[in-house]
Protein backbone atom coordinates (compact mmCIF):
# COMPACT_ATOMS: atom_id res chain seq x y z
CA UNK A 1 0.00 0.00 0.00
CA UNK A 2 1.34 3.37 -0.96
CA UNK A 3 1.24 6.27 1.43
CA UNK A 4 1.38 9.78 0.09
CA UNK A 5 4.14 11.77 1.66
CA UNK A 6 5.10 15.30 0.79
CA UNK A 7 8.67 14.98 -0.36
CA UNK A 8 11.11 17.83 -0.74
CA UNK A 9 13.02 16.25 -3.62
CA UNK A 10 15.70 18.94 -3.75
CA UNK A 11 16.41 18.31 -0.07
CA UNK A 12 16.69 14.58 -0.78
CA UNK A 13 19.13 15.36 -3.57
CA UNK A 14 21.23 17.53 -1.28
CA UNK A 15 21.13 14.90 1.46
CA UNK A 16 22.41 12.41 -1.09
CA UNK A 17 25.44 14.62 -1.66
CA UNK A 18 25.99 14.70 2.12
CA UNK A 19 25.67 10.92 2.48
CA UNK A 20 27.81 10.36 -0.60
CA UNK A 21 30.59 12.57 0.78
CA UNK A 22 30.50 10.67 4.05
CA UNK A 23 30.68 7.30 2.32
CA UNK A 24 33.48 8.55 0.13
CA UNK A 25 35.60 9.53 3.14
CA UNK A 26 34.78 6.21 4.76
CA UNK A 27 35.49 4.09 1.69
CA UNK A 28 38.61 5.65 0.14
CA UNK A 29 40.97 4.04 2.62
CA UNK A 30 39.06 0.78 2.49
CA UNK A 31 39.29 0.48 -1.27
CA UNK A 32 42.97 1.50 -1.45
CA UNK A 33 44.09 -0.87 1.32
CA UNK A 34 41.95 -3.62 -0.21
CA UNK A 35 43.65 -3.06 -3.54
CA UNK A 36 47.16 -2.93 -2.10
CA UNK A 37 47.09 -5.61 0.58
CA UNK A 38 44.48 -7.76 -1.20
CA UNK A 39 42.01 -8.32 1.61
CA UNK A 40 38.97 -6.46 2.94
CA UNK A 41 39.89 -4.90 6.25
CA UNK A 42 36.87 -5.20 8.52
CA UNK A 43 38.71 -3.27 11.24
CA UNK A 44 38.33 -0.21 9.01
CA UNK A 45 35.06 0.32 10.91
CA UNK A 46 37.03 1.10 14.05
CA UNK A 47 39.24 3.64 12.26
CA UNK A 48 36.02 5.60 11.83
CA UNK A 49 34.89 4.99 15.41
CA UNK A 50 38.20 6.00 17.00
CA UNK A 51 38.31 9.22 14.98
CA UNK A 52 34.80 10.04 16.10
CA UNK A 53 35.56 9.39 19.78
CA UNK A 54 38.86 11.27 19.71
CA UNK A 55 37.07 14.19 18.07
CA UNK A 56 34.36 14.02 20.74
CA UNK A 57 36.90 14.23 23.53
CA UNK A 58 38.54 17.31 22.01
CA UNK A 59 35.32 19.08 21.06
CA UNK A 60 33.02 18.26 23.97
CA UNK A 61 35.18 17.29 26.91
CA UNK A 62 38.05 19.72 26.34
CA UNK A 63 35.87 22.30 24.55
CA UNK A 64 38.53 23.11 21.97
CA UNK A 65 36.22 23.51 19.00
CA UNK A 66 35.56 21.54 15.87
CA UNK A 67 38.74 22.32 13.86
CA UNK A 68 40.88 20.79 16.62
CA UNK A 69 38.65 17.75 16.89
CA UNK A 70 39.01 17.36 13.12
CA UNK A 71 42.79 17.24 13.53
CA UNK A 72 42.50 14.87 16.51
CA UNK A 73 40.31 12.49 14.50
CA UNK A 74 42.76 12.60 11.62
CA UNK A 75 45.82 11.90 13.78
CA UNK A 76 44.36 9.28 16.12
CA UNK A 77 42.92 7.21 13.28
CA UNK A 78 46.14 7.56 11.30
CA UNK A 79 48.04 6.18 14.30
CA UNK A 80 45.61 3.28 14.61
CA UNK A 81 45.96 2.58 10.89
CA UNK A 82 49.75 2.53 11.15
CA UNK A 83 49.65 0.30 14.23
CA UNK A 84 47.21 -2.11 12.58
CA UNK A 85 49.39 -2.49 9.54
CA UNK A 86 52.72 -2.70 11.34
CA UNK A 87 51.66 -4.86 14.30
CA UNK A 88 49.01 -7.11 12.78
CA UNK A 89 48.74 -7.27 9.03
CA UNK A 90 52.33 -6.94 7.89
CA UNK A 91 53.62 -9.64 10.27
CA UNK A 92 50.71 -11.88 9.24
CA UNK A 93 51.51 -11.39 5.56
CA UNK A 94 55.17 -12.17 6.24
CA UNK A 95 54.11 -15.41 7.88
CA UNK A 96 52.22 -16.36 4.77
CA UNK A 97 48.68 -15.82 6.03
CA UNK A 98 45.90 -16.52 3.54
CA UNK A 99 43.20 -14.01 2.61
CA UNK A 100 40.80 -15.75 4.97
CA UNK A 101 43.33 -15.54 7.82
CA UNK A 102 43.81 -11.83 7.19
CA UNK A 103 40.07 -11.23 7.12
CA UNK A 104 39.50 -13.14 10.35
CA UNK A 105 42.40 -11.26 11.96
CA UNK A 106 40.86 -7.96 10.87
CA UNK A 107 37.60 -8.99 12.53
CA UNK A 108 39.54 -9.89 15.67
CA UNK A 109 41.19 -6.47 15.58
CA UNK A 110 37.81 -4.85 15.02
CA UNK A 111 36.34 -6.49 18.13
CA UNK A 112 39.40 -5.62 20.16
CA UNK A 113 39.42 -1.95 19.24
CA UNK A 114 35.65 -1.53 19.52
CA UNK A 115 35.57 -2.94 23.03
CA UNK A 116 38.63 -0.96 23.98
CA UNK A 117 36.73 2.14 22.89
CA UNK A 118 33.71 0.93 24.87
CA UNK A 119 35.95 0.49 27.88
CA UNK A 120 37.47 3.97 27.63
CA UNK A 121 34.42 6.03 26.63
CA UNK A 122 31.61 3.78 27.87
CA UNK A 123 28.92 2.14 25.79
CA UNK A 124 26.35 4.89 26.30
CA UNK A 125 25.17 7.04 23.45
CA UNK A 126 26.99 10.37 23.34
CA UNK A 127 26.13 13.38 21.26
CA UNK A 128 27.87 16.52 20.14
CA UNK A 129 26.23 19.56 21.68
CA UNK A 130 27.81 21.94 19.21
CA UNK A 131 25.30 24.12 17.39
CA UNK A 132 25.86 24.54 13.69
CA UNK A 133 24.65 27.57 11.77
CA UNK A 134 22.07 26.76 9.15
CA UNK A 135 20.59 28.56 6.21
CA UNK A 136 17.97 27.90 3.58
CA UNK A 137 18.69 27.98 -0.11
CA UNK A 138 15.28 27.90 -1.71
CA UNK A 139 13.53 24.88 -0.23
CA UNK A 140 16.79 23.25 0.86
CA UNK A 141 17.97 23.41 4.45
CA UNK A 142 21.76 23.41 4.72
CA UNK A 143 23.80 23.21 7.91
CA UNK A 144 27.37 24.31 8.40
CA UNK A 145 28.35 20.76 9.29
CA UNK A 146 27.11 19.43 5.97
CA UNK A 147 28.98 22.15 4.12
CA UNK A 148 32.13 21.27 6.05
CA UNK A 149 31.62 17.59 5.21
CA UNK A 150 31.14 18.18 1.50
CA UNK A 151 34.07 20.61 1.40
CA UNK A 152 36.30 18.05 3.17
CA UNK A 153 35.35 15.45 0.61
CA UNK A 154 36.06 17.84 -2.28
CA UNK A 155 39.43 18.88 -0.84
CA UNK A 156 40.31 15.23 -0.24
CA UNK A 157 39.41 14.31 -3.81
CA UNK A 158 41.46 17.21 -5.18
CA UNK A 159 44.53 16.38 -3.09
CA UNK A 160 44.27 12.66 -3.83
CA UNK A 161 43.88 13.34 -7.53
CA UNK A 162 46.99 15.51 -7.61
CA UNK A 163 48.97 13.03 -5.51
CA UNK A 164 47.89 10.04 -7.59
CA UNK A 165 48.56 11.64 -10.96
CA UNK A 166 51.33 14.17 -10.42
CA UNK A 167 53.72 12.74 -7.83
CA UNK A 168 56.17 9.86 -7.61
CA UNK A 169 54.29 8.62 -4.54
CA UNK A 170 51.02 8.47 -6.47
CA UNK A 171 52.69 6.67 -9.33
CA UNK A 172 54.14 4.16 -6.88
CA UNK A 173 50.71 3.66 -5.24
CA UNK A 174 49.06 2.98 -8.57
CA UNK A 175 51.87 0.68 -9.67
CA UNK A 176 51.77 -1.30 -6.40
CA UNK A 177 48.00 -1.69 -6.56
CA UNK A 178 48.12 -2.77 -10.18
CA UNK A 179 50.95 -5.27 -10.01
CA UNK A 180 52.92 -5.51 -6.76
CA UNK A 181 55.57 -7.85 -8.17
CA UNK A 182 56.31 -5.65 -11.12
CA UNK A 183 56.33 -2.57 -8.88
CA UNK A 184 58.83 -4.25 -6.56
CA UNK A 185 61.00 -5.24 -9.49
CA UNK A 186 60.98 -1.61 -10.59
CA UNK A 187 62.38 -0.53 -7.26
CA UNK A 188 59.18 0.50 -5.49
CA UNK A 189 59.20 -0.27 -1.77
CA UNK A 190 55.73 -1.80 -1.84
CA UNK A 191 55.49 -2.20 1.94
CA UNK A 192 56.35 1.43 2.55
CA UNK A 193 53.72 2.46 0.02
CA UNK A 194 51.22 0.17 1.73
CA UNK A 195 52.02 1.78 5.09
CA UNK A 196 51.43 5.26 3.68
CA UNK A 197 48.12 4.17 2.19
CA UNK A 198 47.02 2.52 5.44
CA UNK A 199 47.81 5.70 7.38
CA UNK A 200 46.10 8.07 4.97
CA UNK A 201 43.11 5.77 4.48
CA UNK A 202 42.59 5.33 8.21
CA UNK A 203 42.93 9.08 8.82
CA UNK A 204 40.26 9.87 6.21
CA UNK A 205 37.99 7.23 7.74
CA UNK A 206 38.49 8.87 11.13
CA UNK A 207 37.39 12.21 9.70
CA UNK A 208 34.37 10.51 8.14
CA UNK A 209 33.50 8.95 11.49
CA UNK A 210 33.75 12.34 13.19
CA UNK A 211 31.34 13.91 10.70
CA UNK A 212 28.92 11.05 11.09
CA UNK A 213 29.05 11.36 14.88
CA UNK A 214 28.57 15.14 14.83
CA UNK A 215 25.67 14.74 12.41
CA UNK A 216 23.85 11.98 14.28
CA UNK A 217 25.11 10.51 17.55
CA UNK A 218 28.09 8.63 18.88
CA UNK A 219 27.91 4.94 19.81
CA UNK A 220 30.63 2.28 19.74
CA UNK A 221 28.92 0.69 16.74
CA UNK A 222 29.19 3.88 14.68
CA UNK A 223 31.88 2.52 12.38
CA UNK A 224 30.28 -0.88 12.02
CA UNK A 225 27.08 0.83 10.83
CA UNK A 226 28.90 2.56 7.97
CA UNK A 227 31.00 -0.48 7.09
CA UNK A 228 28.38 -2.18 4.92
CA UNK A 229 27.65 0.87 2.75
CA UNK A 230 31.40 1.48 2.60
CA UNK A 231 31.91 -2.05 1.27
CA UNK A 232 29.13 -1.45 -1.23
CA UNK A 233 31.03 1.64 -2.41
CA UNK A 234 34.26 -0.35 -2.66
CA UNK A 235 32.70 -3.18 -4.67
CA UNK A 236 30.59 -0.95 -6.91
CA UNK A 237 33.57 1.31 -7.53
CA UNK A 238 35.89 -1.59 -8.24
CA UNK A 239 38.39 -2.74 -5.63
CA UNK A 240 41.39 -0.45 -5.38
CA UNK A 241 39.90 2.15 -7.69
CA UNK A 242 39.89 5.67 -6.25
CA UNK A 243 37.88 7.22 -9.08
CA UNK A 244 35.45 4.30 -9.10
CA UNK A 245 34.85 4.82 -5.39
CA UNK A 246 34.28 8.53 -6.05
CA UNK A 247 31.38 7.77 -8.40
CA UNK A 248 30.09 4.81 -6.41
CA UNK A 249 29.91 6.80 -3.14
CA UNK A 250 27.52 9.32 -4.65
CA UNK A 251 25.54 6.65 -6.50
CA UNK A 252 24.97 4.83 -3.22
CA UNK A 253 24.26 8.12 -1.45
CA UNK A 254 21.52 8.79 -4.01
CA UNK A 255 20.15 5.24 -3.89
CA UNK A 256 19.99 5.31 -0.11
CA UNK A 257 18.30 8.69 0.26
CA UNK A 258 15.76 8.06 -2.47
CA UNK A 259 15.33 4.53 -1.14
CA UNK A 260 14.48 5.88 2.31
CA UNK A 261 11.72 8.00 0.77
CA UNK A 262 10.20 4.88 -0.74
CA UNK A 263 10.64 2.93 2.50
CA UNK A 264 8.65 5.64 4.28
CA UNK A 265 6.02 5.56 1.54
CA UNK A 266 5.61 1.82 2.01
CA UNK A 267 5.64 2.22 5.80
CA UNK A 268 8.74 0.09 6.21
CA UNK A 269 11.43 0.70 8.79
CA UNK A 270 14.17 3.06 7.60
CA UNK A 271 16.61 0.53 9.09
CA UNK A 272 16.26 -1.22 5.77
CA UNK A 273 18.34 1.44 4.05
CA UNK A 274 21.24 -0.90 4.83
CA UNK A 275 19.51 -3.45 2.68
CA UNK A 276 19.71 -1.00 -0.23
CA UNK A 277 23.50 -0.88 -0.03
CA UNK A 278 23.54 -4.67 0.35
CA UNK A 279 21.34 -5.10 -2.71
CA UNK A 280 23.65 -2.91 -4.78
CA UNK A 281 26.63 -4.88 -3.49
CA UNK A 282 25.10 -8.24 -4.43
CA UNK A 283 23.92 -7.06 -7.84
CA UNK A 284 27.37 -5.67 -8.62
CA UNK A 285 29.03 -8.94 -7.66
CA UNK A 286 26.63 -10.96 -9.78
CA UNK A 287 26.44 -8.69 -12.82
CA UNK A 288 29.77 -6.91 -12.98
CA UNK A 289 32.27 -7.89 -10.29
CA UNK A 290 34.84 -5.34 -11.45
CA UNK A 291 32.41 -2.49 -10.73
CA UNK A 292 33.31 0.87 -12.20
CA UNK A 293 37.01 0.04 -11.85
CA UNK A 294 37.49 -0.93 -15.46
CA UNK A 295 36.27 2.49 -16.60
CA UNK A 296 39.51 3.93 -15.30
CA UNK A 297 41.75 1.05 -16.23
CA UNK A 298 42.51 0.21 -12.62
CA UNK A 299 41.35 -2.02 -9.79
CA UNK A 300 38.54 -4.50 -10.12
CA UNK A 301 39.64 -8.09 -10.09
CA UNK A 302 37.87 -10.69 -12.13
CA UNK A 303 35.96 -13.42 -10.35
Amino acid at each position, binding site marked *: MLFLVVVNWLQVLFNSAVTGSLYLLAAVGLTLTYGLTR*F*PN*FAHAEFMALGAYAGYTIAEQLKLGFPYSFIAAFISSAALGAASYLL*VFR*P*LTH*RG*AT*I*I*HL*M*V*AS*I*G*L*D*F*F*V*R*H*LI*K*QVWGGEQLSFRMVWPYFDVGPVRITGLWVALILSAIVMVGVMHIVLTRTRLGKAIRASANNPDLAMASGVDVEKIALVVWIVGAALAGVGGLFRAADTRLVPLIGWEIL*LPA*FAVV*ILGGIGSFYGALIAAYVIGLAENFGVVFLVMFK*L*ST*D*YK*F*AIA*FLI*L*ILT*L*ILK*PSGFGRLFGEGG*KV*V
Partner: protein
Amino acid sequence: MREVRLSEPLIYVLDMAVFVGIFAILAVSLNLEYGFTGLANFGKVAFFMVGAYTSSILANMGFPYLACITVATFAAGFVGFVASLPALKLQADYLAIVTLAFGEILRFIFKNEEWIAGGVQGITVPSAITITGVPIQTMMLIQLTIVYAALAICYFIAQRVVNSPYGRTIRAIREDELAAQVLGKDVFKYKAQMFTLGSAMAGVSGSLFSQYVRFIDPYTFEPILTFTVWMMVILGGPANNLGVILGAVFVQALERGARIAKDYLLLPVDPHNLRVMIIGILIILILMYRPQGLFRESKVKTPALEVASKWKKRS
Protein backbone atom coordinates in the same frame (compact mmCIF):
# COMPACT_ATOMS: atom_id res chain seq x y z
CA MET B 1 18.97 -15.76 29.39
CA ARG B 2 19.23 -17.33 32.80
CA GLU B 3 22.25 -16.35 34.77
CA VAL B 4 23.74 -19.48 36.23
CA ARG B 5 25.90 -18.87 39.26
CA LEU B 6 28.84 -20.78 40.57
CA SER B 7 27.05 -21.26 43.90
CA GLU B 8 25.37 -24.34 42.44
CA PRO B 9 28.34 -26.25 41.03
CA LEU B 10 26.36 -29.10 39.45
CA ILE B 11 24.00 -26.78 37.59
CA TYR B 12 26.94 -24.65 36.54
CA VAL B 13 28.81 -27.60 35.08
CA LEU B 14 25.70 -28.90 33.32
CA ASP B 15 25.01 -25.43 31.92
CA MET B 16 28.52 -25.15 30.58
CA ALA B 17 28.35 -28.63 29.10
CA VAL B 18 25.14 -27.78 27.25
CA PHE B 19 26.70 -24.63 25.81
CA VAL B 20 29.81 -26.53 24.79
CA GLY B 21 27.61 -29.02 22.95
CA ILE B 22 25.58 -26.34 21.16
CA PHE B 23 28.68 -24.48 20.07
CA ALA B 24 30.53 -27.67 19.16
CA ILE B 25 27.79 -28.39 16.59
CA LEU B 26 28.35 -24.92 15.14
CA ALA B 27 32.10 -25.48 15.14
CA VAL B 28 31.73 -28.80 13.32
CA SER B 29 29.47 -27.16 10.76
CA LEU B 30 31.86 -24.26 10.19
CA ASN B 31 34.69 -26.76 9.96
CA LEU B 32 32.92 -28.49 7.09
CA GLU B 33 32.62 -25.16 5.28
CA TYR B 34 35.89 -23.47 6.14
CA GLY B 35 38.18 -26.24 7.38
CA PHE B 36 37.51 -28.73 4.62
CA THR B 37 36.06 -26.74 1.73
CA GLY B 38 37.76 -23.38 2.29
CA LEU B 39 34.55 -21.36 2.34
CA ALA B 40 34.80 -18.17 4.39
CA ASN B 41 31.32 -18.12 5.90
CA PHE B 42 31.27 -14.93 7.98
CA GLY B 43 27.52 -15.22 8.43
CA LYS B 44 27.29 -18.46 10.37
CA VAL B 45 25.04 -16.72 12.86
CA ALA B 46 22.41 -16.15 10.13
CA PHE B 47 21.68 -19.85 9.79
CA PHE B 48 21.85 -20.38 13.53
CA MET B 49 19.32 -17.56 13.78
CA VAL B 50 17.01 -19.13 11.19
CA GLY B 51 17.10 -22.39 13.13
CA ALA B 52 16.46 -20.69 16.45
CA TYR B 53 13.56 -18.55 15.22
CA THR B 54 11.92 -21.34 13.21
CA SER B 55 12.09 -23.67 16.16
CA SER B 56 10.79 -21.04 18.59
CA ILE B 57 7.84 -20.08 16.41
CA LEU B 58 6.87 -23.73 15.98
CA ALA B 59 7.27 -24.40 19.70
CA ASN B 60 4.93 -21.48 20.37
CA MET B 61 2.39 -23.10 18.07
CA GLY B 62 2.61 -26.21 20.21
CA PHE B 63 4.56 -28.53 17.96
CA PRO B 64 6.60 -31.31 19.61
CA TYR B 65 10.36 -31.04 20.00
CA LEU B 66 11.23 -33.41 17.20
CA ALA B 67 9.08 -31.47 14.72
CA CYS B 68 10.62 -28.16 15.80
CA ILE B 69 14.16 -29.37 15.40
CA THR B 70 13.50 -31.13 12.09
CA VAL B 71 11.76 -28.17 10.49
CA ALA B 72 14.43 -25.81 11.87
CA THR B 73 17.14 -27.97 10.30
CA PHE B 74 15.46 -27.99 6.92
CA ALA B 75 14.63 -24.27 7.09
CA ALA B 76 18.23 -23.34 7.86
CA GLY B 77 19.50 -25.73 5.21
CA PHE B 78 17.11 -24.25 2.67
CA VAL B 79 18.09 -20.65 3.50
CA GLY B 80 21.72 -21.76 3.29
CA PHE B 81 21.11 -23.31 -0.11
CA VAL B 82 19.35 -20.21 -1.47
CA ALA B 83 22.00 -17.90 -0.01
CA SER B 84 24.76 -20.04 -1.46
CA LEU B 85 23.53 -19.77 -5.05
CA PRO B 86 24.70 -16.21 -5.70
CA ALA B 87 27.35 -16.22 -2.98
CA LEU B 88 29.40 -19.27 -3.89
CA LYS B 89 30.36 -18.07 -7.34
CA LEU B 90 32.40 -15.46 -5.51
CA GLN B 91 35.96 -15.45 -4.27
CA ALA B 92 36.71 -15.96 -0.59
CA ASP B 93 36.85 -12.27 0.25
CA TYR B 94 33.60 -11.40 -1.53
CA LEU B 95 31.90 -14.39 0.07
CA ALA B 96 32.96 -13.18 3.49
CA ILE B 97 31.54 -9.69 2.93
CA VAL B 98 28.29 -11.03 1.48
CA THR B 99 27.65 -13.61 4.20
CA LEU B 100 28.49 -11.14 6.97
CA ALA B 101 26.10 -8.60 5.49
CA PHE B 102 23.46 -11.29 4.98
CA GLY B 103 23.52 -12.11 8.70
CA GLU B 104 23.16 -8.45 9.63
CA ILE B 105 20.28 -7.88 7.20
CA LEU B 106 18.48 -10.95 8.50
CA ARG B 107 18.90 -9.66 12.03
CA PHE B 108 17.46 -6.29 10.99
CA ILE B 109 14.45 -8.09 9.55
CA PHE B 110 13.78 -10.03 12.75
CA LYS B 111 14.32 -6.81 14.69
CA ASN B 112 11.92 -4.67 12.67
CA GLU B 113 9.17 -7.09 11.73
CA GLU B 114 7.38 -7.56 15.01
CA TRP B 115 4.80 -9.87 13.49
CA ILE B 116 7.42 -12.58 12.84
CA ALA B 117 8.72 -13.07 16.34
CA GLY B 118 8.21 -10.08 18.57
CA GLY B 119 10.86 -7.84 17.03
CA VAL B 120 13.08 -6.13 19.60
CA GLN B 121 10.97 -7.57 22.43
CA GLY B 122 12.16 -11.04 21.55
CA ILE B 123 10.19 -14.22 21.92
CA THR B 124 9.86 -16.59 24.83
CA VAL B 125 10.09 -20.22 23.89
CA PRO B 126 7.81 -22.69 25.65
CA SER B 127 9.53 -25.94 26.46
CA ALA B 128 8.65 -28.52 23.87
CA ILE B 129 9.25 -31.24 26.42
CA THR B 130 6.87 -31.11 29.36
CA ILE B 131 7.67 -33.24 32.32
CA THR B 132 6.19 -31.92 35.53
CA GLY B 133 7.61 -32.39 38.96
CA VAL B 134 11.25 -33.08 38.14
CA PRO B 135 14.07 -30.99 39.61
CA ILE B 136 15.98 -28.59 37.38
CA GLN B 137 19.04 -30.85 37.41
CA THR B 138 17.07 -33.67 35.80
CA MET B 139 15.65 -31.34 33.17
CA MET B 140 19.13 -30.14 32.40
CA LEU B 141 20.36 -33.70 32.11
CA ILE B 142 17.63 -34.37 29.58
CA GLN B 143 18.64 -31.26 27.62
CA LEU B 144 22.25 -32.34 27.86
CA THR B 145 21.46 -35.77 26.49
CA ILE B 146 19.55 -34.33 23.55
CA VAL B 147 22.31 -31.81 22.74
CA TYR B 148 25.04 -34.43 22.85
CA ALA B 149 23.00 -36.88 20.83
CA ALA B 150 22.65 -34.17 18.18
CA LEU B 151 26.36 -33.41 18.39
CA ALA B 152 27.18 -37.09 17.99
CA ILE B 153 24.98 -37.32 14.89
CA CYS B 154 26.52 -34.18 13.39
CA TYR B 155 30.03 -35.40 14.18
CA PHE B 156 29.27 -38.79 12.65
CA ILE B 157 27.87 -37.20 9.48
CA ALA B 158 30.83 -34.83 9.24
CA GLN B 159 33.30 -37.69 9.66
CA ARG B 160 31.52 -39.77 7.05
CA VAL B 161 31.53 -36.87 4.61
CA VAL B 162 35.18 -35.97 4.96
CA ASN B 163 36.60 -39.50 5.16
CA SER B 164 35.50 -40.45 1.71
CA PRO B 165 36.35 -39.72 -1.90
CA TYR B 166 33.90 -36.85 -1.52
CA GLY B 167 36.00 -35.50 1.34
CA ARG B 168 39.11 -35.71 -0.78
CA THR B 169 37.37 -33.71 -3.49
CA ILE B 170 36.33 -30.89 -1.19
CA ARG B 171 39.85 -30.70 0.22
CA ALA B 172 41.14 -30.53 -3.33
CA ILE B 173 38.74 -27.65 -4.00
CA ARG B 174 40.05 -25.88 -0.92
CA GLU B 175 43.66 -26.32 -2.01
CA ASP B 176 43.27 -25.46 -5.68
CA GLU B 177 39.90 -24.74 -7.15
CA LEU B 178 41.17 -24.53 -10.69
CA ALA B 179 42.92 -27.88 -10.48
CA ALA B 180 39.76 -29.53 -9.16
CA GLN B 181 37.82 -28.00 -12.01
CA VAL B 182 40.34 -29.23 -14.54
CA LEU B 183 39.89 -32.75 -13.16
CA GLY B 184 36.21 -32.48 -14.01
CA LYS B 185 34.80 -31.75 -10.57
CA ASP B 186 31.75 -29.53 -10.48
CA VAL B 187 33.25 -27.17 -7.92
CA PHE B 188 30.11 -25.10 -7.52
CA LYS B 189 27.96 -28.14 -6.77
CA TYR B 190 30.32 -29.39 -4.08
CA LYS B 191 30.52 -25.95 -2.46
CA ALA B 192 26.73 -25.51 -2.50
CA GLN B 193 26.26 -28.96 -0.94
CA MET B 194 28.75 -28.25 1.84
CA PHE B 195 27.26 -24.83 2.48
CA THR B 196 23.77 -26.32 2.70
CA LEU B 197 24.91 -29.11 5.02
CA GLY B 198 26.79 -26.64 7.22
CA SER B 199 23.76 -24.34 7.38
CA ALA B 200 21.44 -27.22 8.26
CA MET B 201 23.74 -28.17 11.15
CA ALA B 202 23.73 -24.56 12.30
CA GLY B 203 19.93 -24.82 12.23
CA VAL B 204 20.05 -27.86 14.54
CA SER B 205 22.27 -25.92 16.89
CA GLY B 206 19.97 -22.89 16.78
CA SER B 207 16.95 -25.00 17.59
CA LEU B 208 18.70 -26.63 20.56
CA PHE B 209 19.89 -23.22 21.72
CA SER B 210 16.42 -21.67 21.66
CA GLN B 211 14.98 -24.65 23.51
CA TYR B 212 17.66 -24.37 26.15
CA VAL B 213 17.75 -20.63 26.82
CA ARG B 214 13.96 -20.32 26.33
CA PHE B 215 14.13 -16.71 25.20
CA ILE B 216 15.64 -15.22 22.05
CA ASP B 217 15.80 -11.70 20.69
CA PRO B 218 17.72 -10.13 17.78
CA TYR B 219 20.54 -9.05 20.11
CA THR B 220 21.39 -12.70 20.72
CA PHE B 221 22.54 -13.01 17.13
CA GLU B 222 25.22 -10.38 16.72
CA PRO B 223 28.26 -11.04 14.51
CA ILE B 224 30.40 -11.78 17.57
CA LEU B 225 28.67 -15.17 17.74
CA THR B 226 29.98 -16.08 14.30
CA PHE B 227 33.50 -15.19 15.29
CA THR B 228 33.35 -17.07 18.56
CA VAL B 229 32.75 -20.11 16.38
CA TRP B 230 35.55 -19.09 14.02
CA MET B 231 37.85 -18.91 16.99
CA MET B 232 36.87 -22.42 18.05
CA VAL B 233 37.70 -23.72 14.58
CA ILE B 234 40.94 -21.80 14.18
CA LEU B 235 42.10 -22.63 17.68
CA GLY B 236 41.09 -26.27 17.57
CA GLY B 237 42.57 -26.89 14.17
CA PRO B 238 40.78 -26.44 10.87
CA ALA B 239 39.94 -29.68 9.05
CA ASN B 240 40.03 -31.68 12.27
CA ASN B 241 36.54 -32.40 13.59
CA LEU B 242 37.69 -33.56 17.02
CA GLY B 243 40.03 -30.57 17.24
CA VAL B 244 37.28 -28.03 16.69
CA ILE B 245 35.11 -29.67 19.34
CA LEU B 246 38.00 -29.27 21.79
CA GLY B 247 38.27 -25.70 20.51
CA ALA B 248 34.63 -25.22 21.54
CA VAL B 249 35.44 -26.52 25.03
CA PHE B 250 38.40 -24.18 25.34
CA VAL B 251 36.58 -21.06 24.13
CA GLN B 252 33.60 -21.76 26.41
CA ALA B 253 35.95 -22.22 29.35
CA LEU B 254 37.55 -18.89 28.48
CA GLU B 255 34.19 -17.11 28.29
CA ARG B 256 33.14 -18.63 31.61
CA GLY B 257 36.45 -17.60 33.09
CA ALA B 258 35.71 -13.98 32.23
CA ARG B 259 32.29 -14.25 33.87
CA ILE B 260 33.77 -15.80 37.00
CA ALA B 261 36.28 -12.99 37.06
CA LYS B 262 33.32 -10.60 37.20
CA ASP B 263 31.93 -12.34 40.27
CA TYR B 264 35.11 -12.89 42.23
CA LEU B 265 37.64 -10.32 41.18
CA LEU B 266 37.42 -6.58 41.27
CA LEU B 267 38.77 -5.81 37.82
CA PRO B 268 38.84 -2.22 36.63
CA VAL B 269 37.64 -3.53 33.25
CA ASP B 270 34.10 -4.44 32.33
CA PRO B 271 34.10 -8.26 32.05
CA HIS B 272 32.15 -8.30 28.79
CA ASN B 273 34.58 -5.88 27.17
CA LEU B 274 37.48 -7.86 28.56
CA ARG B 275 36.08 -11.11 27.20
CA VAL B 276 35.68 -9.76 23.67
CA MET B 277 39.06 -8.04 23.77
CA ILE B 278 40.70 -11.30 24.80
CA ILE B 279 38.93 -13.14 21.99
CA GLY B 280 40.05 -10.51 19.48
CA ILE B 281 43.68 -10.60 20.56
CA LEU B 282 43.74 -14.40 20.78
CA ILE B 283 42.40 -14.75 17.24
CA ILE B 284 45.23 -12.55 15.96
CA LEU B 285 47.88 -14.33 18.05
CA ILE B 286 46.75 -17.79 16.94
CA LEU B 287 46.77 -16.74 13.31
CA MET B 288 50.23 -15.31 13.78
CA TYR B 289 51.93 -18.06 15.75
CA ARG B 290 49.92 -21.21 15.14
CA PRO B 291 47.70 -20.79 12.09
CA GLN B 292 47.24 -24.56 11.77
CA GLY B 293 45.56 -24.66 15.20
CA LEU B 294 46.30 -26.95 18.12
CA PHE B 295 45.54 -30.11 16.20
CA ARG B 296 46.77 -30.93 12.73
CA GLU B 297 44.50 -31.63 9.83
CA SER B 298 43.12 -35.15 10.03
CA LYS B 299 44.03 -37.67 7.34
CA VAL B 300 41.38 -38.91 4.94
CA LYS B 301 40.44 -42.27 6.39
CA THR B 302 38.80 -44.28 3.65
CA PRO B 303 38.60 -48.08 3.52
CA ALA B 304 40.99 -47.95 0.59
CA LEU B 305 43.58 -46.21 2.74
CA GLU B 306 43.31 -48.87 5.44
CA VAL B 307 43.82 -51.65 2.91
CA ALA B 308 46.75 -49.78 1.43
CA SER B 309 48.42 -49.22 4.81
CA LYS B 310 48.01 -52.91 5.74
CA TRP B 311 49.51 -53.89 2.44
CA LYS B 312 52.38 -51.49 3.01
CA LYS B 313 53.09 -53.03 6.43
CA ARG B 314 53.10 -56.53 5.00
CA SER B 315 55.63 -55.81 2.30
